[in-house]
């Protein structure tokens, strides 16, 4: 709003895009001015990624006009866009695992000296890029084995060294915790003062309010609303995104009984990720676990689910020691995990929904180990119907949206009537509509008397669903907050303690 005097660097007029007979963008207009952050919002499938791919030269529009710094602009390849000064950070990490961090940052545009790659210069510049984002690792280290958050930061560092005039960030904070997000925002502020325009795509509406100057909301391939300020109530934004009014994002708080279902005593990881964790979860309680990325939350729930080795301490179920040594042992006791990384740990993308569900329910699908395709299919169709999955059992998992895939992962476990359900980042990368239905499922579990644990980096989410919140920092437990005393400040204080 203060920059109305400057002329736009990028304009889009009447952009259409069709894939075969299906039109996915129906005449989108957009203007970007230097030094402003525009949040591009919308549910999955709204056309955000298609639009950013057109701007970054990954795909060509079917019709419409673009101008860049006043001149016609029609990049046919990402290279052309980068050369013009348009950089994009993709949601999926596209790093080369066996190369060093510095090589990844400068791949394809190595700094040269006397016709040879100038390694010292490359490492120096990579190092300074990393430091600005608060990543204290050597640029000579190979990427393989780095945490998802660190890899995301490298991807961002890569884009920052492009000297771009327009940056598109697609879900840059999906894998980041609060501290890293803060550093990223500082860099975005710095870029703004340098006159770089930024298109910021995210599902985390709270951070949009912090960082964006304007908000553009898309739905079903059209621009449905533009806000000239980011100071808009979250609910108004959400309603624009889903196209209907949302009475409430979160269902009412669960009302747990007094019986303790799960108790964890002095639990310590054999891999050194956490130690001395003590808590209990009651029947019908939703128990949140918050903290920064790398605090040991994922490792804690994996250990309870038998997926990671336990060095010390006990896990008790209804007062009985059942400390699991394998996923099988935990599953047999009714403890199931919906893991953090859906595509790598939750679901086999190349297999059908029915098969995916059958893999964790062989006892119910087969009689004495005999399994037929029709029983697999019927079992799956019964269960996906129950949880509102859009699709049929015979469909491949890869054909479904992220939200529906996540529902399948949940459905495959809920078919077992578990006693404890551990959900690690249950709504990461999932659009608002699917998100609220996942909260409904979680709430429904609590009502049925299941003890539910929800790990989330999304503060709003942990605060919204949990009866109590355990906060972890650097592998230690720093406190348990009751719903009444928990807010973003008290959680962040403990997370950085």
């Amino acid at each position, binding site marked *: 709003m203060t920059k109305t005097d400057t002329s736009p660097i990028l304009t889009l007029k009447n952009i259409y895009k069709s894939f075969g007979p299906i039109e996915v963008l129906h005449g989108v207009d957009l203007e970007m001015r230097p030094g402003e952050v525009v949040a591009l919002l919308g549910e999955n499938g709204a056309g955000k990624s298609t639009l950013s791919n057109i701007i970054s030269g990954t795909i060509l529009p079917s019709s419409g006009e673009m101008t860049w710094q006043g001149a016609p602009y029609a990049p046919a390849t990402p290279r052309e866009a980068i050369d013009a000064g348009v950089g994009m950070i993709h949601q999926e990490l596209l790093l080369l695992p066996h190369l060093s961090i510095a090589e990844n940052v400068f791949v394809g545009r190595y700094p040269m000296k006397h016709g040879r790659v100038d390694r010292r210069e490359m490492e120096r510049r990579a190092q300074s890029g990393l430091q600005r984002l608060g990543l204290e690792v050597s640029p000579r280290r190979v990427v393989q084995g780095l945490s998802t958050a660190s890899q995301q930061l490298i991807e961002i560092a890569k884009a920052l060294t492009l000297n771009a005039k327009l940056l598109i960030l697609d879900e840059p904070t999906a894998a980041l915790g609060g501290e890293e997000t803060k550093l990223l925002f500082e860099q975005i502020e710095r870029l703004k003062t340098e006159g770089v325009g930024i298109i910021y795509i995210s599902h985390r509406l709270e951070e949009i309010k912090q960082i964006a100057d304007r908000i553009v909301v898309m739905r079903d391939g059209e621009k449905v609303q533009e806000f000239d300020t980011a100071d808009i109530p979250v609910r108004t934004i959400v309603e624009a995104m889903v196209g209907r009014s949302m009475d409430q994002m979160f269902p009412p708080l669960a009302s747990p009984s007094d019986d303790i279902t799960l108790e964890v005593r002095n639990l310590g990881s054999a891999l050194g990720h956490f130690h001395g964790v003590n808590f209990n979860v009651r029947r019908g309680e939703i128990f949140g676990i918050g903290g920064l990325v790398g605090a040991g939350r994922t490792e804690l729930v994996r250990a309870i689910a038998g997926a990671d080795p336990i060095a010390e301490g006990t896990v008790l179920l209804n007062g009985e020691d059942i400390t699991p040594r394998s996923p099988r042992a935990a599953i047999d006791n009714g403890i199931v995990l919906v893991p953090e990384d859906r595509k790598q740990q939750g679901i*086999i993308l190349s297999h059908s929904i029915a098969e995916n569900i059958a*893999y964790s329910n*062989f006892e119910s699908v087969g009689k004495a*180990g005999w399994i037929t395709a029709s029983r697999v299919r019927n079992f799956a169709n019964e269960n996906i119907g129950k949880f509102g999955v859009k699709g049929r059992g015979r469909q491949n998992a890869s054909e479904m949206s992220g939200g529906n895939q996540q529902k399948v992962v949940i459905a*495959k476990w809920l078919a077992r009537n578990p006693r404890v359900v551990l959900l690690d980042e249950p709504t990461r990368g999932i659009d608002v509509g699917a998100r609220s239905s996942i909260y409904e499922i979680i709430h429904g579990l609590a009502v049925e008397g299941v003890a539910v644990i929800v790990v989330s980096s999304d503060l709003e989410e942990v605060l919204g669903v949990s009866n109590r919140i355990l906060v972890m920092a650097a592998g230690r437990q720093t406190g348990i907050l009751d719903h009444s005393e928990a807010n973003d400040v008290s959680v962040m204080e403990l997370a950085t303690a």
Partner: protein
Amino acid sequence: MSESSVNSQRGRKLADFFSLGGATGPLIGLILLCAFLTFATDSFFSVRNFLNILDQVTVIGIIAVGMTFVILLGGIDLSVGSVLALAMMVLGYLNVEAGLPMGVAIPAAIGAAAVAGLISGLLITEFKVPPFIATLAMMSIARGLASMITNGSQIIGFPAWFNMGAIIRYGGVLTMTVAVMFVVFAVALLFQRYREGGRALYAVGGNPEVARLAGINVNRVTVLVYTACAALSGLAGVLLAARLDAVQPTIGIAYELDAIAAVVIGGTSLSGGTGGIGGTIIGVLIIGVLRNGLNLLSVSPFLQAVIIGLVIVMAVAAETFKQRKA
């Protein structure tokens, strides 16, 4: 339930039973190949020639079954040819040299092969040796052990009935060895399609971490599959011994490549998780029919090798093309 939906359910079930699990492409290839050879030669289309082909593919067919399980899992087994030779030498030594009855020698030969597979499996799961390396090592070890038994020389002198099992066509149709192959095919098909363990193979091959978190004991499945693959190679060795009426330690070289070719032609993906025994059986028949047909057409063995290579490339390219379209 209405009558039509009962009917469609029954139809679905029937379709499941005859489903080839994505092997329709190879099947069409096989039919076209047979049709071509029927017109191109006088002697191809006869019962006798078909029975001949079955005799010729017995050994590779049984090895390919084990190889399918290994590849479904995302692994590879290079040691099958050597393990086959080891089983044959153990059989020859125990039966001919030590004078033990076949009832002891055959189980011992298959058992020796199974132990080799067990060791490969444990190397892969417990010591995290990549399957390619572990079975490459076993390929060398088993070959060496097979040669050590007789210091490299062959063994002859099996009982007469043993060799007859591979020659006499019972009921004028099946030799004992071909019958054994059919039994292996049937059991493997049933296992893969209808047993929990068979379905678990697909899960492990599709994504071992998802499978582990789903409560499948991935290490146990892996060890069992390598053991079963080696045991099947041992069984194939026993049948080959019956056919040849002799054993020698240099037998079975490059059998692993024939088996892998049959599996790949049958549509099983080397990255694991898709394909199956049905396709492999067709793959085995394609290789068998092709060799037989090329012989009938008097194509030189050198050119035959080139043609088989081209068929492998075409089969995989067709599969990749189909997947990209879908």
